[in-house]
């Protein structure tokens, strides 16, 4: 208790607490009081009691001291806020530019972040997403039906299995005489609701799909068909079958990998096409397996694929090509969303886009922050006197730092608030742009909002630290004397910031140009056939029986040039057959078509002849040039491929998107059973012709649904992703360049102001307006040119990577970079020029009045 000199010691911890909490102003005094009473007490009542008292008193006083120090800190903050508001009032335009630039940047940042979060959080609602596995086969990941049962009996650790039968196109549902088209109605095993977590709204999930001819609808489909009626127990008529609605589930979220509108029980499929499920050759089903919580993925994958290979190697029913292609793997459900080879009609994200956009988000945020720093520093000349005055009146540098830092935090908060308002206003436009709705719940929940506040403070501090250091460094004597601060270091820093901004802008502009050019190239490339003015539609089964009559009737219309039937629905959907010539086997894309197909699509026969109606009788092939080349045939016409005779060779044409090379293709003669009608129209009265086609169909089969598509639109749809990408790129670069220009404008006005006197003197000495404008713009030009030099290689590298997505692409030409550089330069010059001209035409008498 006593130290060596026999003195009583203060309780160390209690003393330390006091020192931390008492505000600086009264600290010494209050501590003095504590000591005085303590030592007095120690003398009188003994050190132990004194110590007790000390601790008691510390605890008792703590709330008051804490309140006191928070009170003063807050009142200081209030003071800072007042200063900020005052200087905003003095410099409205400047602060307007600064806050607007920041909030534009933040708007972009929030949007992109929400997009990225949405992508990354895909399938988040599935509780078992990390223990569901898909069996990969390398063949659109289709598996034969019996595989699921076989695996389950072999591996006890598999908790349950789910098979999906995904199919393209829409199904026609009939209810009370009305037709409803439902896309994505899939057959599925009853265990689907136990494995995946689709929320069931009505009905019992366990029994819903347990019996044949039962169907589960999503909420919006149920509302569409039944309105306000209770859908449970209602019967829908589909393709000759009656399906009973057993349950209703919530609409599948946008970012779910598996998308569907209706689920039909698996046993139904068995009744409709008996034997299909048990056929080991039909690779029609996707199989999902559920494993227990503590499984070892690597071990399971090894065991499973070994087993599968041993089972399926022996199957002689499998064609060699199928056996060569199948590669078993086990893929965790979580990873499927970003997997290119997921197969089936599942939706998917693009991890590349996620990366690109995350980078863009950071870029834009950087630009905005840089701008903020730049503009804050640029106020230096205005704030210099204030800083000088404060220093003279005894402000320490630390205090000034605090003041400027809190100012920038305030501004960032203001900008964030504005950004949030803008985000709310622009939300629907953004959804339109990216083509899907995003759950903003990911952004506007308490945790993220808290993060947001922290971020705002952080950004405020980051962007405030340099201006604060810079501004608070002014020497009072110098600034009050009127000598301007020519911090050459600061100038360099600012220049670097401008250069970075423009580099980013130029990269984005170049990207926009390149994407635009590639899209243009895609649209205008000669596809080898005439995709314009061709319309196609599906025939129902009953209409299909009257194909010939329909064709004849349609041809009678003067504006219909030709009509053909085929099985080729839309570009992107493939069916491939294994074909043999001279013991050479390969898989070839196959179109089934009638003799009118070549004319209707505008294809060109380069060798041999077209199909002959009647005489070719399902035994004739027409190959494309790639197929001839691939087989290595010298004189293809007359050769026999898989017991069919080649009658002709058609010139290569793009039957798939330009992402892919033109592969081998064969047209097989088929007259009657084709599901698609292709109609070539002349350019006049298109609307009338369509009405005519509809009437004709209805005449032949009353009530048949007629939904038509134009071929060029279907082709364009293959580039949805790129089109979206193009639009987004355009908007982001527009944002980036406008933010950069805001910054540049602020900087230019600042520079013009700083050089007011210089300009005045020059003009007095006879400088022309032009030369002054030159003087002011020259420096900015230099920076933008430098930014170009940095931006070009980056843009070149990035765009070359992107173009590799396409088999047919433009070359990365140099002039694109030059043009994007020029665009940036012109915009920059326009921005600076406006300010420069204003400064140059000003009367020198005004600027030199005080000299």
């Amino acid at each position, binding site marked *: 208790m006593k130290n060596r000199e026999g003195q009583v010691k203060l309780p160390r911890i209690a003393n330390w607490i006091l020192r931390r909490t008492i*505000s600086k102003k*009264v600290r010494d005094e*209050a*501590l*003095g*009081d504590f*000591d*005085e009473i303590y030592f007095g007490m120690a003398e009188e009542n003994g050190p132990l009691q004194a110590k007790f008292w000390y601790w008691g008193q510390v605890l008792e*006083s703590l709330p008051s001291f804490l309140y006191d120090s928070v009170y003063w800190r807050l009142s200081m903050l209030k003071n800072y806020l007042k200063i900020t508001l005052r200087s905003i009032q003095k410099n409205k335009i400047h602060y307007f530019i600064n806050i607007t630039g920041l909030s534009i940047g933040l708007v972009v940042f929030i949007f992109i972040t929400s997009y990225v979060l949405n992508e990354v959080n895909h399938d988040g609602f599935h509780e078992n997403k990390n223990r569901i596995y898909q069996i990969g086969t390398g063949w659109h990941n289709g598996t034969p039906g019996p595989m699921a049962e076989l695996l389950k009996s072999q591996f006890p650790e598999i908790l349950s299995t789910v098979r999906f039968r995904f199919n393209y196109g829409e199904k026609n549902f009939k209810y009370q005489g009305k037709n409803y088209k439902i896309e994505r109605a899939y057959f599925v095993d009853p265990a689907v609701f136990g494995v995946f977590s689709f929320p069931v709204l009505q009905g019992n999930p366990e029994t819903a799909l347990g019996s044949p001819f039962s169907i589960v609808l999503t909420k919006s489909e149920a509302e569409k068909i039944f309105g306000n009626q209770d859908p449970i127990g209602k019967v829908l008529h589909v393709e000759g079958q009656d399906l009973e609605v057993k349950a209703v589930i919530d609409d599948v979220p946008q970012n779910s990998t598996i998308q569907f509108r209706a689920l039909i029980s698996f046993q139904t499929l068995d009744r409709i096409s008996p034997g299909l499920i048990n056929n080991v050759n039909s690779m029609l089903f996707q199989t999902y397996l559920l494993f227990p919580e503590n499984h070892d993925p690597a071990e399971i994958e090894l065991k499973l694929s070994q087993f599968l290979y041993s089972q399926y190697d022996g199957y002689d029913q499998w064609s060699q090509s199928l056996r060569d292609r199948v590669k078993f793997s086990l893929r965790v459900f979580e990873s499927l969303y970003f997997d290119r080879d997921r197969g089936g009609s599942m939706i998917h994200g693009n991890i590349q886009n996620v990366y690109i956009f995350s980078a863009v988000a950071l870029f834009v945020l950087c630009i905005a922050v840089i701008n903020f720093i730049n503009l804050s520093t640029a106020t230096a000349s205005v704030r210099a006197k204030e800083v000088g005055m404060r220093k003279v009146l005894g402000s320490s540098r630390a205090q000034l730092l605090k003041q400027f830092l809190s100012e920038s935090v305030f501004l960032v908060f203001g900008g964030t608030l504005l950004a949030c308002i803008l985000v709310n206003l622009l939300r629907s436009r953004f959804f339109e742009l990216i083509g899907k709705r995003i759950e903003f719940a990911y952004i506007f929940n308490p945790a993220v909002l808290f993060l947001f506040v922290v971020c705002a403070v952080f950004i405020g501090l980051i962007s405030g630290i340099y201006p604060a250091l810079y501004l608070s460094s002014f020497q009072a004597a110098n600034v009050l004397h009127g000598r301007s601060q020519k911090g050459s270091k600061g100038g360099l820093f600012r220049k670097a910031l401008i250069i970075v901004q423009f580099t980013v802008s130029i990269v984005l502009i170049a990207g926009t140009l390149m994407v635009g050019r590639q899209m243009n190239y895609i649209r205008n490339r000669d596809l080898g056939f005439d995709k314009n003015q061709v319309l196609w539609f599906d025939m129902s089964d009953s209409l299909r029986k009257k194909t010939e009559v329909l064709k004849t009737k349609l041809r009678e219309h003067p504006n219909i040039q030709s009509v053909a039937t085929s099985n080729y629905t839309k570009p992107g959907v493939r069916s491939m057959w294994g074909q043999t010539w001279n013991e050479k086997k390969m898989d070839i894309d196959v179109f089934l078509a009638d003799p009118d197909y070549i004319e209707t699509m505008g294809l060109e026969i380069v060798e041999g002849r077209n199909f002959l109606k009647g005489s070719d009788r399902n035994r004739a092939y027409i190959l494309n040039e790639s197929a001839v080349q691939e087989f290595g045939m010298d004189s293809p016409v007359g050769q026999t491929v898989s017991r069919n005779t080649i009658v002709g060779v058609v010139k290569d044409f793009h039957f798939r998107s330009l992402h892919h090379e033109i592969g081998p293709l064969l047209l097989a003669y088929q007259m009657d059973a084709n599901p698609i009608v292709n109609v070539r129209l002349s350019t006049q009265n298109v609307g009338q012709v369509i009405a005519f086609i509809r009437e004709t169909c209805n005449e032949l089969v009353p009530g048949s649904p007629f939904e038509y598509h134009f071929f060029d639109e279907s082709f364009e749809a293959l580039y949805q992703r790129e089109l979206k990408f193009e639009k987004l790129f355009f908007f982001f670069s527009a944002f980036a360049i406008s933010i950069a220009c805001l910054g540049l404008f602020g900087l230019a006005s600042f520079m013009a102001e700083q050089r007011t006197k210089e300009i005045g003197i020059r003009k007095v000495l006879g400088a022309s307006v032009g030369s002054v404008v030159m003087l002011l713009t020259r420096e900015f030009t230099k920076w933008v040119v430098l930014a170009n030099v940095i931006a070009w290689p980056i843009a070149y590298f990035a765009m070359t990577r992107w173009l590799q997505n396409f088999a047919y692409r433009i070359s990365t030409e140099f002039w694109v970079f030059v043009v994007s550089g020029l665009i940036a330069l012109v915009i920059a010059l326009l921005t600076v020029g406006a300010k420069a001209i204003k400064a140059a035409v000003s009367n020198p008498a005004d600027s030199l009045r005080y000299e």
Partner: protein
Amino acid sequence: MHLLSRAEEIILMAIVNLKDNAYGIAIRQYVSKATGFKWSIGAVYAPLHRLEEKRYVAAVKGKPIKERGGRSRIYYQVTQEGREALLKLKHVNENLWKKVRAVELKEV
């Protein structure tokens, strides 16, 4: 203008009454005695700090004292503004009390 808080008023009055001896411990003893309960040191200094910021009291540094760990006592004096504020408060209090009859408070 803002009226003083009750704690500020009490402490300001204590400083007036203590005259030349108004330093931390003395003020605390005085107000504790006057109000009938113990004030913590913190409870004294928070209002005192505010009074000082408002310039109602001025601080005068005394000599360093060994018992205080070599620190000086700081004596407070009421400034002219402080006196005016206190007077104003007195008027307010008197005006308010005028209307309140003792009977109503059952003090008779």
